[in-house]
């Protein structure tokens, strides 16, 4: 269960008199209080349509349930109807439906909330309850709360077949993308703009940021501050660590991972990229902007993203406002980047270029409306995002989750972790193994996009609230896996490596998704043919940029890495290569 902010609860009270606005309207926290007039109208029309579509079932369904369904499916009538029918038919509801929120004790707030709980959609895996008896309800509430308190030793697993649940749920596509590019090219601003124009961030919040930014003479960074939240980031006008945010479209639930561009924070950028399905590369089109990026991190970011296995890329040619939407500049940048990207083995058809301006919002959500930009009739960023093909999820394989963050996410849970599920599935009640500590923990609760859920699958980035484990056993880069299918701990391994820079045997930093560890390249075993993998030269004395080689990497201590996992090797602040773990050496 997520901690509820005081704000949310207050809001809950505010809307207490209105059926439609119960406790579960938290899809977007940033959307804050107001449901717009637009929303209300959509809701009204949607309700009518759903009632029509429900036909014979219609009588059994309350307005609140319909509102609920519509809200969660973003007014998609078809999906709402399916959901409601399933629910009435006793079939499990989609996991999108959040479980009711519960509080520890029945405070005044909670009593109000409990009214809402009654109307909330039934949590996945429970049979709808007909009872309206308030005491019974309270009891149930207390019970379920009991399940979540620290002193309760066992968290019951519902023993769901998560793969089935997932297939049944008819969930939207899930896409995580990482925003990369050279420092100051406008990544955070662009994401702030995207969220603002999608109304995930409301006007009031933006106004507030504008004022605060102006106060310290950084007004141009107001939109970036949506992502850059630490005081250090704000005062320096630079992103330091990955910022995560969410939005959804008709088809897709997106997770934004806004990476820092500064070279010092590439370790964070790598950790963010390892959780993404594809990159959005931001390039400053302004005079010298593009060029300084080429000398800087633009290429390094691309190579890292590519080495993580990402195949699609959207190139946001940004700050077009500063060059009066010059077509020739856009063409020049597209041409040069296409060459580089195809050399980095991105297929040309999987590269999309979009001229845009994050600061002003042209071609982000809204099409550019500028006479100088007449030449461009292509997609907006949002359209391009919606069109990207997503990689297959490995649901059937054993669970692998690389821990991106360890924190105290909930008063009642001593320890929470977050990170992308690389493969497999997880559900509440699962006992997991944390490596390299080799300690087990119980999954007490799972959240996705700050909403409690019963399970999560590969490709999602859940927060897991854990029990029965001491916080010392978990840190960033650890692997969470099933007890019966652990990842081996490895001290030295052989890796197929694509060199970005010259590689000599030397001390290096080894990155494996969110993990980073000191280590060294011990042996240059062989130079390989890039395409066939055949040995071209044994024991080369140096590996040159662009060459592929087999090398032996030694880690400072035993760490969980298994065959097929991707590694990035850095030396003295430069990414010198990336590759695949082949086998233990």
């Amino acid at each position, binding site marked *: 269960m997520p901690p509820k902010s005081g704000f949310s609860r207050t809001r809950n009270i505010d809307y207490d008199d209105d059926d439609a606005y119960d406790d579960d309207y938290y899809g977007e926290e940033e959307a804050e209080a107001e449901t717009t007039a637009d929303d209300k109208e959509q809701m009204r029309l949607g309700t009518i349509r759903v009632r029509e579509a429900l036909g014979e079932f219609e009588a059994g369904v309350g307005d609140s349930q319909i509102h609920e369904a519509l809200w969660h499916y973003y007014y998609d009538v078809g999906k709402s109807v399916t959901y409601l029918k399933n629910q009435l038919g006793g079939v499990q509801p989609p996991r999108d439906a959040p479980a009711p929120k519960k509080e520890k004790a029945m405070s005044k707030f909670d009593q109000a909330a409990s009214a809402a709980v009654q109307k909330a959609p039934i949590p996945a895996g429970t049979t709808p309850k007909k009872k309206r008896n308030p005491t019974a309800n309270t009891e149930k509430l207390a019970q379920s709360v009991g399940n979540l308190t620290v002193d309760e030793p066992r968290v019951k697993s519902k023993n769901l077949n998560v793969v089935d649940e997932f297939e049944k749920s008819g969930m939207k596509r899930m896409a995580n993308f990482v925003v990369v590019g050279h420092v100051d090219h406008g990544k955070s601003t662009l994401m702030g703009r995207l969220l603002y124009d999608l109304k995930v961030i409301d006007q009031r919040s933006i106004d507030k940021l504008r004022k605060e930014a102006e106060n310290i003479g950084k007004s141009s960074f107001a939109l970036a501050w949506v992502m850059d939240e*630490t005081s250090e980031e704000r005062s320096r006008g630079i992103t330091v660590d990955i910022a995560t945010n969410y939005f959804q479209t008709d088809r897709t639930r997106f997770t934004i991972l806004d990476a820092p561009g500064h070279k010092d924070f590439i370790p964070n950028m790598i950790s963010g990229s390892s959780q993404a399905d594809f990159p959005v590369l931001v390039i400053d089109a302004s005079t010298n902007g593009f060029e300084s990026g080429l000398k800087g991190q633009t290429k390094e970011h691309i190579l890292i993203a590519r080495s993580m296995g990402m195949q699609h890329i959207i190139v946001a040619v940004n700050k077009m406002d500063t060059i009066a939407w010059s077509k020739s500049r856009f063409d020049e940048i597209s041409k040069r980047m296409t060459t580089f990207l195809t050399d980095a083995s991105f297929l040309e058809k999987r590269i999309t270029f979009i001229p845009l301006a994050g600061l002003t919002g042209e071609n982000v959500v809204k099409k550019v409306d500028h006479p100088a930009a007449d030449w461009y009739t292509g997609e907006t960023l949002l359209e391009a995002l919606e069109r990207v093909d997503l990689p297959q999820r490995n649901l059937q394989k054993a669970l692998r989750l690389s821990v991106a963050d360890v924190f105290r996410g909930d008063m009642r849970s001593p320890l929470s972790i977050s990170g992308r599920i690389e493969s497999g599935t997880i559900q509440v009640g699962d006992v997991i193994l944390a490596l390299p500590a080799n300690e087990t923990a119980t999954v007490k609760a799972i959240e996705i996009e700050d909403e409690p859920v019963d399970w999560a699958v590969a490709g999602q980035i859940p927060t897991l609230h854990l029990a029965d484990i001491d916080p010392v056993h978990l840190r960033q880069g650890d692997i969470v896996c099933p007890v019966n299918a652990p990842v081996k701990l490895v001290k030295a391994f052989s890796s197929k490596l694509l060199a970005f820079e010259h590689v*000599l045997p030397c001390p290096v930093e080894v990155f494996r998704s969110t993990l980073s560890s000191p280590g060294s390249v011990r042996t240059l075993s062989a130079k390989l043919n890039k395409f066939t993998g055949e040995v071209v030269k044994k024991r080369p004395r140096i590996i040159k940029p662009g060459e592929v080689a087999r090398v032996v990497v030694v880690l400072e201590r035993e760490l969980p890495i298994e065959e097929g996992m991707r590694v990035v090797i850095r030396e003295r602040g430069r990414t010198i290569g990336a590759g695949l773990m082949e086998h233990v050496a």
Partner: protein
Amino acid sequence: MRLIYSKIEQKTGEGTVGLLPEEPEDMWHIYNLIQEKDIVRARAVRRISKITEFGPTSSQRVAFDLEVAVLATDFDIGSGQLHVIGRVAEQNEHAKMGAHHTLDLELNRKFHLTKADGWDSVALQMLREACDVDRRAELWAVVLGPGTANICIITEHQTILKQHIEVPVSRKRRGGVDSHTKGMEKFFSTTLATLLRQMDLTGTSAAKLGKTLPLLLASPGFVAQSFLQHIKDEATRTTNKPLLALIPSIVVAHSSSEHIHALSDILSSPTIASKLSDTKYARETALMDQFTTLMRHDDGRAWYGPREVERAVDKGGVGRGGGVLMISNALFRAQDVDERRRWVKLVDRVRDIEGGEVRVFSSLHESGKRLEGLGNIAAILTYPIEDLDDEDGDLDEGDQEGDMII
């Protein structure tokens, strides 16, 4: 280290020296000097129990001089303790000839060392360096990143990790950066407390020496700067005099990572090198850089690995006019006497015959660790020589199209 006496035959190199280690670093020198089969004579302590008819009654500690022929040495870098394991080489009333005994060499305790194979040029050079009384460069360094810090002391011949600190700092999260900020504060205060304990600003050692060692803070990003700010704030808040006095000798530098091996690039950067007195470390690092630059340019003037370097020397490539032989002292610690002779011969040849420069790297410095990766030996040649590795050349790669294997 104090050389109490030296009785070394000029011609043969045979002989014995009496030494008194006075500084922790001296233990490292001794460790490098003592080889298998050498004779070490030092004070030994034994517990002797008197056996009476009622069983063992009293036990007594007796100290006596003992001479052992070295079998092995055991050195603990952190504590500077050196144990010499050997067989008793000179019978006495407490120790039987040939019996195993471990001598613990300690600071401020003299001992005598006789080289079994004689004092070769490398051993003599080490002895000279060890007994060089010139003030040595020394500094404290903290290499840090969010939540991780490595506190080290860097001396002329060693980089010693005094303490590795890890404080969990959660990352920035949407809508809540408090826990990150709090985590960083906790991390800074833990690091500072540990650092002060290690540096012992008020303690006897500092007072005795009457000096403050420079302190280097290095990190990627802004962590080092923030840590300095934290130190300043703490010093002012607590009006801690020794801490306030330390502040002017703090240098903040940029490092590529929070790991110790990042020290090698910090200390080679000219800005830092100029601020800190020029250490052996900095020189070694600069040479390594020069070497890797040549390697990158695929210049036949840079070679590494035992066989390759020997060949380069044979061909006269490491001589007058820029030839440099870089060799780690680890090679001279070889158990095998012949192995050591091989490297001493190479060093002698480069220095005395070829006229090149010889640098013995300390395996305890990061530059030495980089050299270790290259087989503990590398050379910069005066002219390019190709194919010293005499492996078959590249097989034809054949221009293929398609997807790369990675």
